[in-house]
Structure formats: structure tokens, C-alpha cells
């Protein structure tokens, strides 16, 4: 039954589409011109664009995007943005199944940094270079990672950075302050732990959440100023990686609620049963509206970097225009993006999402930034991008993660030493490199 409505929609779209194409042919002028006199029937049948993203199901971010799109619909009636996509837990797989079948089934889609590189290489992303001009903004240098042959193929729509979020009320009660170095950090985490109902720190470690584990584990090697691969050479048995995993194991044994999934751990954090969380800045949003403890959000702080190198992995998530849809749809998608990337709209989106790292120059209003009491540590942390941390494996991030996580589980279970496990992991990673890079 939904099929019939869909096909009738397509027919309607078919009429307007041809005319829209003509308009598109007159070039960017059509998009830049403030008012275009569309024929009446086009106004009645706006162009529908499907925006594929996992944001819709994210508590705070979903509402922020819905509000922005409502605003967009209010300001014009030629383009309608429809919600589409999947929950974050299998968004990336589903997009790849779609890509595998020929084309992604959406006009706009969001991706992770590594997912983006993979899809861009396979020709799924259109250049959005002109959107920047139309919006009249300057992207920050970090966005250069989204350039293919010099052209931007995606626009960063949320940047997250790793850092240590902590509950200052628990710190005060225990009489401790921000860690000064890694050894001191272990002491503090241990002091903050009072089993069975209070834990010093949480970091994901369950085999049932391999992506989350790998995504956050990467930061633990960066704490020793290490990286996981250089070019095509994996560095799994390098000293910083081994030290990072040893540190994790120490924390795991002394201060973590073992066997707890991320969702439950966040709940424990919200009930002040976990003192610290090694997590990305975007996660803080979920604690803003906490019904059980309204004070929690105000007590959140992020620690100033206290580890060698002071670096935090910074992940930029682009929104892309599907290169494999009709040209007029791509044109309309860019039209939407130019609107979204206008400075005041971008600022509004950033604020609604409670984000802290802007993707364009001047993207964050100082008045807003001052209200974020928890963001100082994140700001003080130096950025290191995913390609810098993973080398050429950035294109095979999940594969590398799959090599690492089983050995990591072995380490946590105490079944082998870090050195021994990572020695074997390195062998597997070299084999992986041979397979994926030789082709």
C-alpha cells in the first residue's frame, strides 16, 4: 500500500523534475537568486529529498535536525527534506549494502570519516565545492580530509573529539582533582572506585559492541602519543599501543564496571555511579536532560589533557550529496546544504546539537561557548585526525578493528599478556594489509 503512494509521488515529481532541470541548466544563478518565480504547479509539488542519517534516532541531535528542517520548510516550499535512514547501530552496514547494489538510496547522506573515504573512493559522493561559495563561509582546515582531487565531497556536519568527561561532584566528595599525569590518573580512578556501586571510570570493552570498543580504544594508544598504523604498516605491537592497552587493563581491573554495555554504563554515569568516562564530546548531550539528577549536567567537566602529546582523536562526520541520483535532485540537495551552511543557520544547528567544535570559521558564537561549562578540556586537547591515527588503514578501519578486538578481549580476560596478544594481532594485521593493499 505504501508502494502505491510512493509511485504516485514519483509521477508528480516527474512533472516538476523536468522543469527543475531546466532551471538547473541556467546554472548556479538559479540557486543564488533570492527569488525565483516558479510556475504555480511546481510550488504545489515540491521536490522531495531523502536525507539518510542516523541522527534521527539520536535523542538530542534528532530533535535539533527536525527543528532546522522545519525552519527550512518554512522559508521555502520548493524542496522538502524527508527523514530516512537507520539507527546508528547498523546504519553503516545498511548504507554499504545499498552501495553494493549500485547506488545509495537517498539524496543526502551522512557518514563517519572512514566510511566517507570508502564511499567517496567508490564514486558515491558529488562535489559540493560550490555550496561553500553559495553559503559564503570558510571551512576549517580539518575539512581538507574531505577533499577528493581538491574538491570537497562532503561538508562536516558534526565534529567530535575524544576527551575525559568527569563528574566534579564525585571528585569533590572523594577529595581528588583533575589528574596530572597517567600514573596519577590510575590512582585517582582507583580512589574513586567503591565496589560494588561506584566505579572510577568506564570505557567500552564488550565483544557485543565491537565498533564502539574499537572506536574508543583507538584513543588509548593516543594517550601515549601513539598511532595504530603508519601508511600500510600496522603498528599493533609498537610501544605506545602496548602501553595504552596495559593502561586500559589496569583501569579495567581496578576501576571499571566490567561487563557493562555502553547504554547501561551511561545510565550508571547519569546516576553518579561512574566518575569518569573516556568519550567523545557529542555524548555529553544525552546527560543534559536528566530527570533523575537535574544537577548532573552542571557538574560535568572535561579534563585538561594530562597525557603525553595532549592529543585527542577528532572525527569529522560529513553530509554528502549522492552522486548517483538525478542531476536536479543533486542540485536541490546542494541548495539545501547552502542554506544549512549559511553562518547563522550553521550556528543554530551547532547550538541545538550542543556541539562544541565548529566546521567553519566563526561557526560557534562566543556567547554560546561560554555556557558550556564542560567543554574546556575538549578545547584544550589537540586534534589528531582519523587518517593520522590509522594511516592507510583508514579505508579499512572496521577490518583493522576486527583484527584487534578479539585479542583485546583475550587480554581483558587475562588469557594472555598484552605483548603476546599484540604480537599475534600484528601478524594478522600484516596479513590483512597484504590482502587489502595488494589489490
Amino acid at each position, binding site marked *: *500500500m*505504501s*508502494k502505491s503512494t*510512493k*509511485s504516485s509521488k514519483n509521477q508528480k515529481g516527474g512533472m516538476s523534475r523536468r522543469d527543475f532541470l531546466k532551471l538547473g541548466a541556467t546554472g548556479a544563478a538559479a540557486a543564488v537568486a533570492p527569488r525565483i518565480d516558479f510556475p504555480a504547479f511546481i510550488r504545489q509539488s515540491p521536490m522531495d529529498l*531523502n536525507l*539518510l542519517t*542516523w541522527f*534521527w*534516532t*539520536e*535523542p538530542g541531535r*534528532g*530533535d535539533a535536525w*527536525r527543528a532546522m528542517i522545519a525552519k527550512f520548510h518554512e522559508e521555502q516550499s520548493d524542496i522538502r527534506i524527508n*527523514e*530516512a*535512514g*537507520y*539507527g*546508528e*547501530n*547498523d546504519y553503516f552496514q*545498511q548504507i554499504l*549494502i*545499498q552501495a*553494493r*547494489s*549500485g547506488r545509495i*538510496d*537517498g539524496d543526502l547522506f551522512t557518514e563517519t570519516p572512514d566510511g566517507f573515504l570508502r564511499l567517496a573512493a567508490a564514486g558515491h559522493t558529488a562535489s559540493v565545492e560550490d555550496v561553500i561559495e553559495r553559503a559564503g563561509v570558510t571551512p576549517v582546515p580539518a575539512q581538507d580530509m574531505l577533499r577528493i582531487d581538491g574538491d570537497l565531497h562532503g561538508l562536516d556536519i558534526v565534529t567530535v573529539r575524544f576527551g575525559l568527561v568527569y563528574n566534579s561532584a564525585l571528585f569533590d566528595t572523594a577529595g581528588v582533582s583533575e589528574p596530572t599525569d597517567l600514573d596519577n590518573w590510575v590512582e585517582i580512578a582507583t580512589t574513586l572506585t567503591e565496589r*560494588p*556501586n561506584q566505579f572510577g571510570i568506564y570505557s567500552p570493552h564488550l565483544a557485543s*559492541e565491537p*565498533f*564502539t570498543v574499537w*572506536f574508543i580504544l583507538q584513543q588509548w594508544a593516543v594517550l601515549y602519543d601513539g598511532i595504530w598504523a603508519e601508511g600500510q604498516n600496522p603498528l599493533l605491537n609498537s610501544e605506545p599501543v602496548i602501553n595504552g592497552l596495559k593502561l586500559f587493563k589496569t583501569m579495567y581491573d581496578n576501576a571499571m564496571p566490567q561487563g557493562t*554495555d*555502553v*547504554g*547501561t554504563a*551511561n*545510565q*550508571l554515569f*547519569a*546516576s553518579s*555511579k561512574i566518575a569518569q568516562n573516556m*568519550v*567523545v564530546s*557529542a*555524548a555529553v*548531550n*544525552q546527560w543534559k536532560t536528566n*530527570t*533523575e539528577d537535574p544537577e548532573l549536567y552542571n557538574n560535568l567537566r572535561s579534563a585538561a589533557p594530562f597525557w603525553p602529546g595532549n592529543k585527542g582523536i577528532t572525527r569529522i562526520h560529513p553530509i554528502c550529496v549522492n552522486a548517483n541520483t538525478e542531476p536536479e535532485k543533486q542540485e536541490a540537495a546542494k541548495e539545501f546544504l547552502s542554506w544549512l551552511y549559511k553562518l547563522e543557520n550553521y550556528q543554530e544547528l551547532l547550538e541545538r546539537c550542543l556541539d562544541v567544535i565548529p566546521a567553519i570559521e566563526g561557526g560557534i558564537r562566543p556567547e554560546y561557548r561560554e555556557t558550556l561549562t564542560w567543554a574546556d578540556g575538549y578545547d584544550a586537547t589537540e586534534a589528531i585526525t582519523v587518517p593520522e591515527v590509522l594511516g592507510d588503514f583508514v579505508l579499512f578501519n572496521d577490518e583493522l578493528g576486527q583484527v584487534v578486538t578479539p585479542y583485546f578481549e583475550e587480554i581483558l580476560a587475562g588469557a594472555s599478556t598484552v605483548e603476546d596478544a599484540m604480537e599475534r594481532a600484528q601478524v594478522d594485521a600484516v596479513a590483512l594489509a597484504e590482502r587489502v593493499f595488494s589489490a
Partner: protein
Amino acid sequence: MSTMHNTLAHTEKRGLASPHHWTRRIPLYVLVILFCIVTAFPLYWMLVSVVQPISMSLQYPPPLFPQAFTLQPFVEIFTGQDTAQRIDVWILNSAVLASITTLICLFLSVLGAFALSGRRWRGQAGFGFILLMTQMLPEALIVIPLYATIDRLHMKDSLLTLALVDTAFVLPICIWILKNVFDTIPNEIRDAALVDGCTRMRMLWRIMLPIAAPGLVAVGVVAFFHAWNEYIFAASLITDRKLYTASVGLGSMISMIDTPIDKLMAGGLLFSIFPIIFYLLVQRYIVAGLSAGAVKG
């Protein structure tokens, strides 16, 4: 029909014929009660975790009985600002999907079971074998080529398509159950109808289906549960958030960093309650249906 009555009659008679003294039955009762507790405990625990504020469940020792009462997560999953993220919409979609699946499955399994149950024909064993073979490859593998095909046919984002896919997977087992039920119908009854001048299809419709009614219920329940529970195909074939089934909807609440575990639990409870109620309503037909299937004709 008569066979079934006999079965029931036997059971009744057995009860009357063996008047055990109640003390001798204590071990039996203990065993049954233990069995029930172990089986039902997870369900009870789900209920306890959902009705009390979640932080009370997340402590040691966990209270064995609810210490407080809240409906907050339920209120939230029913009144989200995001209209697509509402459990009532998901459950309705799941109910539609499961009902369509059940209907298609009933229709096709009657055809298949009738073919397998009647006189022998060339290729009968082969047909049975093909049915068994369809069950031997994991869904995760079939979803890739199937997605491509369905996308080419522009049949995505439709509960009907999903019902067709779900039916394909559960049909073989349904045919197997129903074939056993048909096998119990004595040949005399079939032959008598044919001698009376019935066509075979008419005989199937007028004589066999009424006798096999409990079997049809059993098949219906198996199909319904399958569609209600199914995740892999629903997740890849439905992108329109208004069409999310409950399994996909709940799955979509799981994210890397901010899964709302209390709402997920509440949703999970509602997701479980409907099939349980449905099952309790029809369970006496299920045993009768399977029982008819087990009796050798």
C-alpha cells in the same frame, strides 16, 4: 476429528483412573514449580527492571521486588516529539506485517501440505528436500543478493514486500507442521468425499481444512512469531522510518554512545507482551493442533 476426541478422552480417563494420594505428588509439584520459576524468571526480571526507576535495578544487591514505581519511560516512548519514533506506530506496523505474513503463509502452506500429504507423486521427496534446503543458509547471507533484487524491482519500503520475504523463510516449517496434521486425516474420509463426487480442491476446502483447524492455528502462530521477531530483513528493506517494525525501531534506539536503556527496556517489554498475550489466547489450539499432527492416521 474422532482421533482428537479419543486423545482428549484418554487424557480425561487417565486422570480419573489413577487417583494418587496428594502427598505422593509433592515431588511433582516441587519440580513443576521450580521449572516454572526458572523459565519465567527472566520475564519477571524484565518487568521489575521496567516498573522501577532504572537506577534501582543497577545496584548490588539488586532488589528482588520493585522498590518504587515509575511509568516515565513508557510515557516517553509514547509521546516522543519525533512521531516516527513512537512505539505505538512500530507495534502497529509489526502487527500489520505479522498478520499479512500469517495470511500468505497459511494459504501457501495449505497448498504445500496438501501436495505432500496426498498420494505419492514423482518429485515429492525432491520437493520436501528443496524446502529443507531453504533453511540451511543464514539470513545474513541471503540479505545481500535479495536486497539488490528487491531494490531493482522498486519494492523496498513496503510491509507487503517484507511479509513476502518473511513468509519465504517460515513457509517450509509451516508446511512441515501442516503436512503432519493432514497425514492424520484418515484416507477413508478423503476417499469417501471423492466418491461423493467432490473435486480434490473442494474436498480440501470442505472436509480437510475444518478438521485441520487447530493445525492451522499452530501454523499461524509460528508464522506470526517469526514475522514479529524478524530483524535482519526488516532492517535492510525498510528505510522509511514511518514503516519501522518494533524490532527495527527498538534496534534503532541502540547507538554507539547514547542508547537510552530505560526506554529500550520499556519498549522491549511492550514488544514482548503482545505475542505473549496472543500466545496465551490461542495456546490450547496449538497443543491440539500439534497433537493432531502427532497422531498417526
